[in-house]
Structures are given as C-alpha cells and as structure tokens.
C-alpha cells in the first residue's frame, strides 16, 4: 500500500482529486478521505503529496478555495471545482480511459 502511494503518478493524483471534488466542496482531510473511499482504500494520499497538488491545481484555476467552518467548528480551507476544473476532469477522464483501454489491450495481446 505504501508503495502504491509513493508511486502515484502526478496525473493520477490530479484526476483523483478532481473526481473527489466533483461530488462537492471538501477540505484537505476530506479530499483524502473521499479518495480512500472511492478507490476502496487502494489510494491513501498523504498531506506531503496532497497539499502541493491542491495548491498547484488552485493556481491552475481548476479549484476555487474558500474558508469555512469544518464539522468540528474549526476554520478550514475548502476546495470546490471551478468550471475549468470540470472541463479538466472530463478531459482527463477521457484520456485516462483511452490509456487504460490501450494498456489493457496491450496486456491481453501477449
């Protein structure tokens, strides 16, 4: 599991974050937990990878940050998808499916 996580490709991490946020606004830990949940626990994103990615994506205009109250009434930074972020999610999803199909075919052809 450790291994999977460190080897997570940057593009894959971006895609997972976009997907996690497509269901609604989340703070950092929320994103982490949502990714665990939707991947059935296969991917655990550590803060050392998560926060650099969130900030980079925010600067790219895919995520819109806002400060709000967390479930335990603490001020926390929330992220939601921008319109550009949705487009990015669509584009990356298509791209991922194309690659996954190609790789699956390649593996079967052997």
């Amino acid at each position, binding site marked *: 599991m450790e291994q999977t996580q460190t080897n997570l490709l940057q593009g894959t991490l971006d895609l997972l974050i976009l997907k996690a946020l497509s269901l609604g606004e989340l703070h950092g830990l929320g994103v982490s937990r949502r990714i665990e949940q939707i991947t059935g626990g296969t991917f655990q994103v550590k803060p050392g990878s998560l926060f650099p990615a969130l*900030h*980079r994506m*925010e600067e790219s205009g895919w995520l819109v940050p806002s400060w709000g109250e967390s479930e335990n009434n603490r001020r926390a930074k929330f992220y939601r998808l921008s319109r550009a972020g949705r487009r990015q999610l669509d584009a990356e999803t298509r791209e991922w499916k194309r690659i996954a199909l190609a790789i699956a075919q390649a593996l079967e052809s052997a």
Partner: protein
Amino acid sequence: MTGWRRLLSLRRNLLRRPEVERELGEEISAYVELLAAEKIREGMDAAAARRAALLEVEGVEQVKERVREARAGAVMETILQDIRYGVRVLAKNPGFTAVAIVTLALGIGANSAIFSVVNAVLLRPLPYPDSERIVSFEGVNPSKGITDSNMSVPDFADWRAQSHAFEHVAGFVAGGSLLVAGEEAERVFGTSVTGDFFPLFRTDAMLGRGLLPGDAEKGAPPVAVLSHGLWLRRYGGDPSVVGRQIMVGRESTEVVGVMPPGFNYPERTEIWFPFPLDPAAERRDNRYLEVVARLKADAALAGAQAELDAVNARLAQGYAETNSGWGVRLTNLRERLTGNMRTPLLVILGAVALVLLIACANVANLLLARAASRGREFAVRDALGASRLRIVRQLLTESLLLSLAGGAAGMLISLWLTQLLVGLIPTNTPRLGEIGPDARVFGFALAASLFTGLLFGLAPALQASRGNLNEALKEGGRSGGEGARGGRARSAMIVSEIALSFMLLAGAGLLLRSFLRLRDVNPGFNPGGVLAMRISASGPKYPAGPARAEVYRQALERIGSLPGVESAGAVLSLPLGGDTFNVGRSFIREGRPATPEESAGASYLAATPGYFRALQIPLVSGRTFTDQDTEKSPMVVVVNETMARRFWPGESPVGKRITIWRDEKFAREVVGVVGDTRSAPGEPAGPQMYVPYAQDPNWGSLSLVVRSSADPASLVAAARNEIHALDKAIPVYNVRPMRDVVAAALAERRASTLLVGAFALLALLLSLVGIYGVTAYYVTQRRHEIGVRMALGAQARHVLGLVMAQSLRLTVAGLALGLFGAAALTRVLESLLYGVRPTDPATFAAAAALLGAVALLACLLPARRATKVDPLIALRAE
C-alpha cells in the same frame, strides 16, 4: 487562461508572502486538528490523538516546504532567498570571503587577459567586411621542398584570368619606400598594389578615394593612399592633404586618399601605391609578388584550390622550364597571418587554465573546511524541512556569488594585465593593435566565473548535504569537527593541486631550459660592440650601378674613420632575421650535372669587405672580399661552411666556379669559405653565398654594421651625421645595437617563457597557501588528540613527525600523479622546445624538488605550532 492565473498567483505569492504563509500554516494545522478529532472519535485520548496525527503528517514544516516548492515562482523566490542568505553568510566571514575572491580574481583575471590576446589574434575575424572569404596564396614547390614562396606576375595574370571561384584576385609587393617631406627624410613602409586590392578588402577610403585600376597605367600621374596612422603622424590629420603633392623618393606624388583606422594590410603598411601590372614584360621565374583573393559567395576554398591546381597543371605543361613542379596553396588569410602564433598562445592559455584549476582547488578547500564547521547549521535546516537539494542549491548559490565577485574583480585585473601583456609581446606580432576587451572576452570571463563557481562549489556542497542529521548534531556538539569524508575530499584537492602545479612547473622548466640553450647558441657572429642601421641610397639620384656602390663605400669610409670604430661593413640582410627578409637564389656548379638541391638554392647576400670583420664571422679558408673586388675585376663569391660541406663534400670549394641565377652570362669563382651565420636561433644555418656588393649594386638598401670599442649606442648620432653629411636625403632607420637584433630573434620565446614561468610561480604560491591551510586546519582539528598524546609523554618531534607525515604523504601522492600528467602533457610543447626532450629527467627532478621544498615549508609552520600545544589548555577546551 491557465497561464494568466498562474501569473496572478505568482504576483500574490511574491507580493503578499506573509498572508500566503499564514494561510498555509492555518490550512495545515486545521488538517492536523481534523485528523486528531477523527482519532478522538475512534476512542483515543486527546494528547495521544494529537501525537498520532502529527506523526501521520510526517512533519508539518516538510509539508509546508513542499507546498512552497510547488507554488508558482517558487524557484525565483528561493533563489532570491538563497542570494540574500548567501550574501549574509559571506559578509559574516570577511577574511574567508576576501581570500576566496582574491584567489579567484587572480585566476579569472589572468585567464581573461590571455584569452583577450587569443581572441584578438586567433579568433576574431580580420577587420574587413566578410573577411573570412579572403584567402592568401602561397607559392609551393614540393619537389624542391619550397613553401611560402612569392609568385610571378605572369602566373598571377593567368590565375586571375582562368579561375572562376574568385570575386577579386589582387597582387602586391610589400617593401620599404621613401617618403620625403620637409628636411628630414623618413622611411615609411609602403606597398604597391594591383587595382583589385581595395575592392577586395571592401574598405572605402575615409577621405578621398582608394586606388583604381587606371592609376597604374603607363603615363598616369603618380598617386598614393595614406594610412590613418601616417596621416595623423605626418600631416596632423589635416583633411586638405588629399589632392596635395608629396615627395615620395624623388618623385612628386599626389595623395588621393586616406584609409580608415585599422586598415593596415599588409601588416605595418603606411602608404599604398599602384602596381603597374605588365605580365608580358615579366619572367615566370621571377617570383616576387604576393597574392590575395576574395572567394565568391558561392565558392568554397577546396573548390578554388582544385580549380587553381588545374590552371597550374596547364602552366607547368606550357612553361615546363619555369613552372614545372610549382603550385599554389590557398589558406584563409586570418589563419595564414597568425598560424605560427597558434601553438605558443594555446600553450600559454593552457598554462593559465591550470592556474585557475589550482585556484579552484584552493577555494574548494576553504569551502570544505567551512562546510565542516557549518555542519550544525545544515542539520538545523534539515530539521526545519529543507530538502537536500535545497541545501545543495544554497551552497552553490554561495559559491556562485563568490565566483561572480571574483570574476568581476578578475575582469578589472585583466584590463590592467592586458596592457602589461601587450607591452611584453614582440611588436611584430600580427594583429597586436587589435588586442582589447570585447563582448567575447566579457562572455569568457562570465563563463569562467560560472564554471569555476560550480567546479569548486559542487564537491563541498554535496559533502555538506550528505551529512547525517544525528551525526552532525552530535559531532557539532563538540567542536565543529568533521567526519572522515570531509578530510578525504580535502586531501584529494591538495593532491590534485600539487599534481597541477607540478605539471606547470615542469612545462615552465622545459621552456626555460630551451630558452637558455637558445640564448647560448652561437649565432655565428659576435654581436657585442656592434651597431646596426639600415640606409637607403636609391631613386633617380642613385641608380643601380657603380655610383651607388661608391656612395656606400664613402659612407662606410666616413663611419670607419670615426674615433673608436674598429671596422664597418654592409650587407643585404642581417642574420637572425634582423631585416625580416631573405633573398634565395639557385645556382649551378660548373662542370657538374644540375641537382634539385642546387635549384633549391642558397641564401644570397651582397656584402662589403668590412662586413665579415665587423661581425667577426670567422674565415675558414681562402679569403673574404677586398676593395679590389669591383665590377671590373673577376667575379667572385664566398660561401659558408654548410654550403661548402653540402656541395663540395670532402674537398675545398676554393677555386671552384658557380653560376648564380640572374647572372647567367658569367660564373663566379669561390674565393673563400666563412663560418655559418644563423637566420633563426633554433634552426641550423642553411647554405649561404656572399657576393661583393660592388659586383651587384642592384640593391637600394643595405644594413650597416659598425664595430667599435665604445658603447654602440654612443655612436648613433655620429654615424647618422656622417651619412647626412654625404647626403641629407639618404634615410637612416632601424638603428639599434646588434645585441637587440639577437634579443628580438628570441623575443617571442622570451615572452612565452616568461608568461608560463609567471603562471608556474603563481601556481606554486597557490599550492603553498593551500598546503599551509590544510595542515593548519589539520592541527586545529587534532588539538585535542595532540594534547592527549603530549600529556601521555609524546615528544615534540613525534608531534612534528605526525603532522608533517600527513602533509608530505599528500605531497608525494600529488607529485606522482603530476609526473604522469606532465609526461602526457609536455608533449604538446615539443615544437616549442630546443635541445631538451619533453620528458627531460633533470627538469622534472628540479620541478619535483622545488615543489617538495615548498610543500615542506608550507607544513613546517603549522607543524611547529602543533608542538607548542599545551596539553592542559587543549584538554580543558573540551
């Protein structure tokens, strides 16, 4: 869209840093708290939950640092931060910083100065438009072993007419000419050029016009074009000189133009005349023309060469007697002009580059020592989340700050050094006037600075960043000590420094020995007490013939009767290249079949009877000339020993007869054999033949040699007066003691030997400092150990031995390495050496001894200090 957003973020990140930082901190701590809250919900108590959460985050500071690195402008921001921090660190250690900058400034400055010479002489294109397309012709005859010959006018005309690769082909004859203006006659260097010459160089006159093809036609009024230098010197830069008549020789000549500054081809020319081209009236074996051409835009050198080869093959068939075996070699004009400067300059550049490497090793050593004492600082930064890359980058930034500061100071030093160099380089070096800084020199200095910064910074930076956090904190807890690794790196630096110094010293030693040998070479004459000067009796007043011979005879008689003068004579060209030209003529021995060696010829020298006495050229057999050898007496010739040995082996040439080219109507009897005089210090003399000037008074200028018992310099005014008493219009020039002629022949070697020697000394000095520094550092590090040893009863000499052994081991290793390096490298010197082999054992031994002694000296002082360590103080310092 995305790019624009990132730019906005960049602005925010850079301009509103505190806010961005605060928000980041808040975001991460919220994460930790949320995580802890989760764990509390799972049943942990508050404190344990918080600890577990922090552990899971794996370092809040590390996470923040990674976010910062991911953000826009992170690179720029950290660079700025590194620079600010670096400047602070360097300013806090002014001693270290000053030593490092001075060392680098010397290294980079010397390199830039030498490079500015290399740049001007070897690299920069000639100062004419599209000058790389200009090629130089060189007459060659491989079967006779002749290279670098001038060419004949008819051949020139055929090349021009029958080749298609050239836009222009121009011929010229460089030679002295006579300019008279006002009372004193002044000799200026003039060149006669064909009509294509100025168009070929694509350089317009600054005032008036250049020469046109019509200027050389028969009956056209004589015209001339002045160089910028002559115009300023002689006519005070007066623009109205164009159109004025000046006296050149005895001929009134109109100045039609002044060339811009920097136009001085062929080298040193100050006045240009039209050359009357008349191929029909010229012989094909009279080769006196020099030829240059401009390639057409679509023509290549190789193609032009092939085309000329074809023309020459036809000429060799059509004119077998004069042209068989003759060809032409084309060379890029720039390469031709400076080709013989290449090896010495590159050797000097190599030597100075070694000095820079040694300087780098020294600075790297300083940095390594400092990195050791900064171990704790790096450990703290590591703990605060700086990645290893970040620490390496910080240290490299400091190195680059040092090297750029050193480079800037070095550039200033190089401006001054370049002045010094120009004074040192022999004045006949081509393109000397073009030496100066330009963009390329600044670029070189910058590149050298960056390169050295990386070179000396990389090892210490990697070293420092590799440190284990715990170890560093522990070790640092004591006295800023260092691990064994740092010691090894510094040892490696010292070993390579000594090896490089040895290579330089060995090279300098070889050059010095060659120079001393050359200086001791007997040139075949005795220059001591002899004054040399050149005079010209030519023009309509002194036509070639007996009258001219008579003027020289009278001049020599007058000078010969001056008080103190022992003998005076004259010759067509001085030995050791004193007159920079040499006439060669072929000859035929009477009664023997002609050989190729004969037609390759011998040096041809017209001389007066006093010449041999004045230079004390020994008479081997027969006689030299007397006043009775005149145009009416039997024709005679005197040959040198080499010619006698080569052409009359085992017998005496005296009494034999030869016919020399150009006097086919008669033969000359060999009446004597004299000793060889060398034309260059490092080359054996070739065959030489002397004829009495009275029997060949066709030469307008002769060199006078006057031997006196007094100082030759004291004779200058008196000799000049005697000649001017004869005729004020006879110019006297190139007046200098014969010793200066000998020195000038060695000037280039003196310069390169001096430079490489100076660099070797600099290298020695740097090594001294380096070894001293390392030994002193070693002693400081081992204070405690030495104190313990002494407390346990070690004697001073044991301590001395301990410290010295450490440094001397490195010295020996360096010498061994240097020996291999030198053996491999000094081979490139081969063409510059004389009478020494590139691996001369004596020179290598001397270099090793010198370097060894310096190393001993360098570690003696710190070693002695080690013996003064007071055990009590050393131990209490714990």
